């Protein structure tokens, strides 16, 4: 496949609303998109869209297509386009072919030319090797997890929604964990690392399964690096933690908010007054400076 056709194919995979981040030495500070002056802080490196949930049509947001389109418009209006976008999963609500088709069609409007997608549990309810992998499995040989380098940064896509721990936490499984060890082995500690996966890679709230069973083992592999950014979705709200040189950050959804941890009987859609909804949806943008430090900015649709 030529580079051009690959880019076109990737573009079909799509992008959604996100967050603009600023990461300095592993520490992010979020700021409002309307106030962000990206041209003054450097080149946007990538953006993160998450939890587009195409196919959802309940009261919490009867128009997830509209909010994704609004997100794409906001991204396309950025004065400088990032090189690529990450989608941290739950592209669809029910893993249906038609939902994936709609999502791809919407996301193809992004001016960003390349999209990297990891699955959420909503994308793989039909099991391994089905709709999600038929569309997004190629870069990873249908494993779902893979890595690539861009502008000096090493990006690692992980899948933590195909195996689960008995307590409901996500899991990589032994094969993927071994692959991750190999991928990081011998790599210079000075290279910035960005890890992205759907479910949080650290435990935010175990009763709702908001975490990854091997979280501590994964963190121990990352601690020797000077700048590590861990980007997740799944919980439809921003939660952030800094541990040494590792920044953990979850993104907003473009579809609907969820309750804060423990704030409801379960982690279902949160119904808010319509006027409040745009302020609870958004995207994340990462900007790199000349010292290869990343800044993350979370922005909303409000």
């Amino acid at each position: 496949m030529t580079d051009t056709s690959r880019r076109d194919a990737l573009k079909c995979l799509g992008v959604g609303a996100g967050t603009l981040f600023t990461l300095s030495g592993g520490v992010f500070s979020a700021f409002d998109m309307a106030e962000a002056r990206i041209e003054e802080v450097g080149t946007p490196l990538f953006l993160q869209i998450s939890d587009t949930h195409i196919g959802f049509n309940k009261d919490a947001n009867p128009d997830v297509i509209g909010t994704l389109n609004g997100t794409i418009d906001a991204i396309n209006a950025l004065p400088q386009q990032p090189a690529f976008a990450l989608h941290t999963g739950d592209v669809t609500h029910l893993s249906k072919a038609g939902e994936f088709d709609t999502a791809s069609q919407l996301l193809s409007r992004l001016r960003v030319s390349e999209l990297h997608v990891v699955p959420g549990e909503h994308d793989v309810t039909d099991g391994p090797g089905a709709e999600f992998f038929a569309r997004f499995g190629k870069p990873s040989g249908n494993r779902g997890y893979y890595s690539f380098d861009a502008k000096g940064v090493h990006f690692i896509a992980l899948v933590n929604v195909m195996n689960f721990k008995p307590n409901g936490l996500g899991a990589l499984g032994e094969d993927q964990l071994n692959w991750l060890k190999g991928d990081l082995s011998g790599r210079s500690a000075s290279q910035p690392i960005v890890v992205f996966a759907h479910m949080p890679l650290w435990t935010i709230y175990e009763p709702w399964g908001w975490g990854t069973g091997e979280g501590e083992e994964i963190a121990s592999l990352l601690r020797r690096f000077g700048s590590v950014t861990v980007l997740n979705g799944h919980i439809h709200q921003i939660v952030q933690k800094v541990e040494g040189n590792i920044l953990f950050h979850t993104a907003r959804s473009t579809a609907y908010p969820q309750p804060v941890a423990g704030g409801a009987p379960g982690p279902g859609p949160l119904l808010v007054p319509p006027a409040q909804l745009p302020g609870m949806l958004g995207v994340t943008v990462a900007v790199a400076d000349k010292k290869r430090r990343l800044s993350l900015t979370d922005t909303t649709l409000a």
Partner: protein
Amino acid sequence: MNSKLFAFVLLTISAAGLHPVEAGDVSVIIKNFDYSPMELSIAAGTTVVWKNLDGEPHTIASVDGMFRSPALDQNDSYSFTFNRPGVFKYICSIHPKMKAVITVK
């Protein structure tokens, strides 16, 4: 979900009758991220009908792989007929903390 909306949903299910529970069938309701009842004992040949009342989709996936529903949206149903005796554990593959068991005699 507020109580008025919940009542409406119940009314809609009963009026629409998209997945009628036939005589002899056993019903399991999915609500607030739990199966109800979580433990069920039935005779061989019984059909179990699951209904999801949550705004979040759920699945019914047997641990041994014998049955696996598609993702059930709100008010969707799935049924499976248990023809042989045994103890069948199942989970929601989207929210694997949700667990239940059916004993077939």
